């Protein structure tokens, strides 16, 4: 967060030197409005994450999405990411909730990547109208294997980077 703060300060200074104080204020007001607009959705996302963490049975999640869940866990993560409603304000709190209730990095990566690449929300709302049906369908078909592959690669690397945690017996 400190790094981001520094980056923001440098960029704001550059904007100020280029466009003066008006440029800085214009962006500030625009972003404040945006910020106000997304706050309710962020609240909804946080509540959704907390409720999901409560509703999902931990043993079941760690069995079906945990380190030993195999290909099935990656496929479940991918399917979950693809059907999840809402935008980043739901995807990330829900992904964080999955991690806390026992999903491993692999399945969670599959979910996040699937949400960004094949989630229908963004494709229908933005990609279809802007890039057209042909390109969008073509891009989605090509992207289909990526969440599972990314999750598998994540799991493969994770086990080798943190061997101790992976050796823990399944609960």
């Amino acid at each position, binding site marked *: 967060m400190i790094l981001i703060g520094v980056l923001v300060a440098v960029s704001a200074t550059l*904007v100020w030197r280029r466009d003066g104080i008006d440029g800085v204020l214009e962006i500030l007001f625009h972003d404040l409005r945006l910020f106000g607009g997304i706050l309710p959705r962020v609240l909804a996302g946080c509540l959704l994450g907390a409720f999901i963490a*409560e509703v999902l049975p931990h043993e079941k999640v760690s069995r079906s999405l945990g380190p030993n869940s195999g290909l099935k866990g990656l496929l479940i993560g991918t399917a979950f990411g693809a059907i999840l409603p809402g935008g*980043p304000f739901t995807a990330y709190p829900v992904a964080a909730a999955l*991690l806390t209730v026992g999903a491993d990095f692999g399945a969670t990566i599959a979910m996040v*990547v699937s949400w960004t690449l094949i989630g229908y929300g963004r494709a229908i709302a933005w990609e279809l109208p802007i890039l057209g049906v042909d390109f969008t369908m073509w891009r989605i078909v090509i992207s289909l294997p990526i969440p599972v592959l990314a999750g598998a690669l994540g799991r493969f690397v994770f086990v080798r980077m943190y061997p101790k945690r992976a050796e823990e017996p399944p609960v």
Partner: protein
Amino acid sequence: MTAALLIDLTLWGSVAALAFMVWRRGRPVLVSAAREGTMDFINIVPRIGLGVIGSGYIAAVIPPEVITGWLGPDSGWLGVATAVIAGAATPGGPVVGFSIGAVALKVGGGPPQVIAYVVAWALFAFQRLILWEIPFMPAKFVWFRAAVSLPFPFLAAALAMAIGKP
């Protein structure tokens, strides 16, 4: 506007449905889960604030022409590599990312490069990482996920080259 309304309806509908499921386990469970969610929200607001307001400034100092220029036609694997960097560097929401992809296609950018661009943008657009992923997820997870995702825009471009245009 209607799309946004639909998103909000689905979102709050899901919240309500899950709240009902939690409530069936007892009122105290619902209250404690709701309190936990609200605390998460309160903790995240300052970070989102920095992300939203800050990324506006970062976006303002990156000229869009730079990004379109990188997606030149017949640029081969070098073009794919620059498309990946351009995708990660593209500021703004979905409109900006997809519009730049559309412009690149119109001015003759190669479809594999544009695929690589859109996929890279979906996977690592810095603004989404700063604004959404880092505040919500453990930092270790975010870096790990980004690193693991690195080969995939290239794989998508390779698939696009192998399959050909639709």
